[in-house]
């Protein structure tokens, strides 16, 4: 089975006044059909830009400077703007982080959904409307027909995010990129959305890239997990494996920093130090300043190592008995 | 606070300077502004004649074209006006007046408007309603009517024109400050300051006001330009400054009649100077608008 998406050596840089900002730096991964991939990492590590790069939506002064993005075997980076537009929303859809901001406040939900249908399929308004209504029903919005004519502000945050999901589902795309879609929401609403997404992805056979910095959420949802740090994927593998036997010191640092990792009342175990400024990342392993295991060799670029169930970039990986 | 720190790139002043510095157009405009300001300040030392002193004028020299010589051998490089004023001197003095009127009225209006706007925003309720209704009323009244009434009440003169312009302008500032302050007021840092037991005046002036400054600087800049234009228009309508001490606007208005009879210099030169002045102020103000708007400023 060919993977839905194959990203090879993707680099996306921002040419800012203060220098080149390597938001995504030599990132490679694949997403298989019907696979749910979690992309985690701390704020600013390049998760969103990875997603936007795939869709060709990196804003200036950012630019994909190298790499390949193969979607069903075709390289998206060589496509014309028109061809890209035909793919966006139709075959790759995206859901954004902030449900309050993703919908145009002055257009009705119906307008925003119908235009999406009609942007890709030559159908009548009535039919587009019917499809929109069905999509709203799918994501669990009660009485979709009436709600269609509402405006975004008349929905709560959770419902807006569901509308965004419904829009993403309109064309049953092959791949959905969800960029932290539940971060702004409550625990109870978050779990409703997770539930809905998971059901629908299964039902329609879609692949899903789920971007988040909440390890718990990804753990609950994804098949595979990729951990980003400073523009690079530092570790990737099956969820169970990565979360139980993290290989990269950053992954393990993250896992031990969560409150649940220590007994109640005990001091937590944060990763010491701060992430380097994206403008002045040290060469070599970007994590080495914060890493207890770092040695001189870490000043050189770690290669992507591929073990049985794991890919990682580290000279001093944790070696678990199981691995 | 060291001077260097003041100009640090993150500070307001620093942002102003680096912001302007990055646009060649704005640099030129800023330099022009500074030159004109300088010329206005040292005006009396620059000019061969005091055009405000009737005793040195001679209508025998009136309406001489540029380059003519006076009876006593002085050269009128830009010609003379209907009263025999040396146009160059008159323009420098007029610039002084115009700039003075613009800057001063802008400044006072800024202060008055800011205080009232802050009060309206912070206290809300009746005070807010009252102030804002007055603002609406002020913005609705034609400038000329206000000026004319004041003129009648107070008599004619520089200060009265300035007063009229202040009266017309403060409302703009009050409105701008209020809307900015309404946003700032609800930010958490204000609540934090309240929690820390910091008094209301201090919060208003020390905390909220500095954050409302960027739009104010921009509006202030543009208002100065506006005030200069407005004074010119008032002069054109015959309710401006004393005629013996003409501003640029009055010079233009005086020469306006003569424009078609070929004595173009009386109106055109001051007109060009006014244009250059207002234009460069606007360019600088415009640039500031770009720089100081965090959403539009360079990333």
């Amino acid at each position, binding site marked *: 089975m060919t993977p839905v998406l194959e990203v090879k050596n993707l680099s996306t840089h921002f040419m800012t006044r203060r220098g080149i900002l390597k938001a995504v730096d030599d990132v490679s991964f694949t997403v298989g059909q019907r696979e749910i991939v979690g992309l985690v990492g701390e704020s600013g590590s390049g998760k969103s830009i990875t997603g936007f790069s795939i869709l060709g939506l990196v804003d200036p002064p950012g630019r994909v400077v190298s790499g390949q993005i193969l979607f069903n075997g075709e390289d998206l980076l060589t496509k014309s703007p028109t061809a890209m537009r035909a793919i966006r929303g139709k075959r790759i859809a995206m859901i954004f982080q902030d449900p309050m901001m993703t919908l145009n406040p002055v257009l009705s939900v119906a307008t925003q959904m119908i235009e999406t249908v009609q942007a890709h399929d030559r159908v009548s308004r009535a039919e587009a409307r019917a499809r929109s209504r069905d999509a709203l029903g799918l994501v669990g919005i009660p009485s979709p027909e009436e709600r269609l004519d509402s405006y975004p502000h008349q929905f709560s945050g959770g419902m807006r995010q569901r509308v965004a999901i419904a829009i993403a589902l309109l064309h049953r795309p092959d791949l959905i990129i969800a960029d932290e879609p539940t971060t702004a929401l409550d625990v109870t609403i978050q779990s409703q959305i997770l539930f809905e997404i998971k059901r629908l992805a299964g039902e329609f056979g879609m692949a899903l890239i789920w971007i988040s910095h909440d390890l718990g959420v990804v753990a609950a949802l994804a098949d595979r997990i990729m951990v980003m740090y400073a523009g690079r994927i530092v570790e990737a593998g099956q969820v169970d494996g990565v979360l139980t036997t993290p290989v990269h010191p950053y992954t393990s640092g993250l896992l031990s920093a969560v409150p649940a990792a220590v007994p109640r009342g005990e001091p937590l175990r944060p990763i010491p130090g701060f992430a380097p400024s994206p403008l002045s990342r040290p060469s070599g392993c970007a994590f080495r300043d914060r890493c207890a295991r770092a040695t001189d060799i870490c000043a050189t670029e770690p290669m992507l190592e591929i073990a049985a169930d794991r890919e990682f970039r580290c000279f001093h990986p944790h070696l678990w008995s199981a691995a | 606070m060291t001077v260097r720190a003041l100009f640090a790139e993150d500070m307001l002043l620093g942002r102003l300077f680096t912001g302007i510095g990055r646009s060649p157009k704005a640099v030129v405009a800023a330099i022009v502004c500074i030159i004109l300001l300088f010329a206005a300040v040292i005006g009396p030392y620059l000019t061969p004649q005091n055009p405000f002193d009737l005793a040195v*004028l001679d209508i025998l020299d009136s309406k001489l074209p540029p380059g003519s010589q006076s009876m006593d051998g002085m050269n009128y490089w830009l010609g003379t006006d209907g009263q025999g004023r040396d146009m160059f001197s008159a323009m420098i003095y007029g610039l002084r007046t115009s700039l003075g009127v613009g800057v001063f009225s802008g400044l006072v209006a800024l202060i008055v408007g800011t205080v009232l706007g802050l009060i309206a925003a912070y206290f809300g309720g009746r005070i807010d309603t009252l102030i804002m209704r007055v603002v609406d009323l002020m913005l609705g009244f034609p400038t000329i009517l206000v000026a*004319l009434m004041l003129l009648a009440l107070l008599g004619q003169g520089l200060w009265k024109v300035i007063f009229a312009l202040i009266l017309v302008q403060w409302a703009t500032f009050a409105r701008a400050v209020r809307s900015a302050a309404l946003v700032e007021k609800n930010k958490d840092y204000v609540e934090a300051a309240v929690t820390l037991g910091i008094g209301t005046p201090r919060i208003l002036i020390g905390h909220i006001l500095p954050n409302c400054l960027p739009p104010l600087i921009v509006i202030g800049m543009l208002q100065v330009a506006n005030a200069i234009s407005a004074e010119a228009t008032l002069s054109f309508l015959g309710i401006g400054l*004393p005629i013996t001490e003409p501003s640029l606007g009055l010079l233009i208005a005086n020469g306006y009649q003569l424009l078609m009879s070929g004595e173009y210099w009386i109106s055109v030169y001051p007109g060009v100077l006014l244009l250059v002045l207002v234009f460069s102020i606007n360019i600088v103000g415009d640039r500031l608008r770009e720089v100081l708007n965090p959403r539009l400023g360079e990333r």
Partner: protein
Amino acid sequence: ANLILGSGTEPSAIDPQFSRTGNNQNIAMQVFDRLVQTDPAINVEPALAVSWTNTDPLTWQIKLRDGVKFHDGNPLTSEDVIFSLTRAKDIPNSPAPFSGNVGAIESMKAIDKLTVEFKTKKPTPDFIEQVGFVYIVEKKVAEGASIEDFNSGKAAIGTGAYKFKSWTPGDNLQLTRNDAFWGKKQDFDNVTIKFISNDASRVAALRSGAVDLIDAVPPGDVKTLQGISGLKVFSIASARMIYLALDSARDKSPFITDKEGKPLDKNPLKDAKVRQALSELVNRQLIIDRILDGSAEAAGQLVPNGVAGNDPSITVPAMNVENAKKLLADAGYKDGFGITIHTSNDRFPGDSEVAQALGQMFARGGLKVNGVVAQPYNVYTKGAGAGEFSAFIFSLGNSTPTSATGLRNLLMTVNKDAGTGSFNRTKYSNPAFDDAMRAATAEFDVKKRVELLQKATKMVFADVPVIPLYWQKVHWAGKANLSYVANMTEDTSATLAGIAK
């Protein structure tokens, strides 16, 4: 042919009796007629009245022109005249009624269809000059007509050379020729009068061809317009005298200071020598040449040569700084004093410039000019009337055949009941002059009357009650194929225009 006339002023109403201000009369004189009218030099000539005689000092008989028809075809009768002269007194809310013109009438009687007999309250030598200038309306139409009826044209029925067609306030007024007019046949079929108050715009309109003829050409533009082929300028020195009024009656004057700018206890202007000195400091011709581009004639008295009452023996005071300084020294002001000159800035061409020039000249004569203050007329006139100024510029237009009215209004002692001194804003009072004027106005013999007026004029101007500066020249400009009768009364009317022969 059609005529488009660009006018700087606009009527406030079409009712010819509503106001006797110039702007209203200009329109009225084209649609309506009076018993008599003036020629360009303000001489009376017959109009609707062909003759007027006084059978005794209190009785006048006026004979009307035969065959005159109103625009609606009805003939003019004595009834219309009696009605019009009665109506003139009680136009509601009229700001400048003709009531003064008919004030002398005791009673009126129609002798026949074309003769009216008047009884006056007291002997009135210039009776015809009073009632003669009231416009005659048609009784049938005007009786009970409102001001709106006139404005709309319903009641705007006169005997004039043109018929009223329409008025769009602020924009234009349209007339068509009255083919049944009793007088000279007009050259234009249709006349449009466009109201363009801004001077430069009006000139631009002529230059761009949008109008054929304009009035009130600013002096500065005269030379330019003359230089443009295809255009022609029509000029005349009017009977409008521009003068500097001096606060000569009071013991203290608000804007008189010492050289340091501190208020002065004494009022130097009370001294005729000082006034004389100020007059001699003024170089009238220089002002006329430099500020008014020659559009004026230097004045030393009220009315110019050609208007009855002018005394040719009064010379225009020449500039004589030496003598002026001597006069000042004689009066005890060797070092001069401080003075502020006030002026309007929108009343007549060059008003504020002239004031500044006066300031320059006074300054050169050793006075300290504390300022020249220009104000819009509405503000200015209030201050002038209230005696708030010390030296201020005004103008006085003379539209009557003799200087009597002007002298009475400007220089006679203020006496509201006698109707003298209405324009005497400085409260100047000269009993000898008052007596001389009273004698002159009571004189029935025209020649004698004029002589008496000249005597009074000479007497009063020797005292320098005001400083006469100049008589304004007025200009009209039009296409070269037009003719226009430039007139001293500053009237702008299609009846004065024609196609050049």
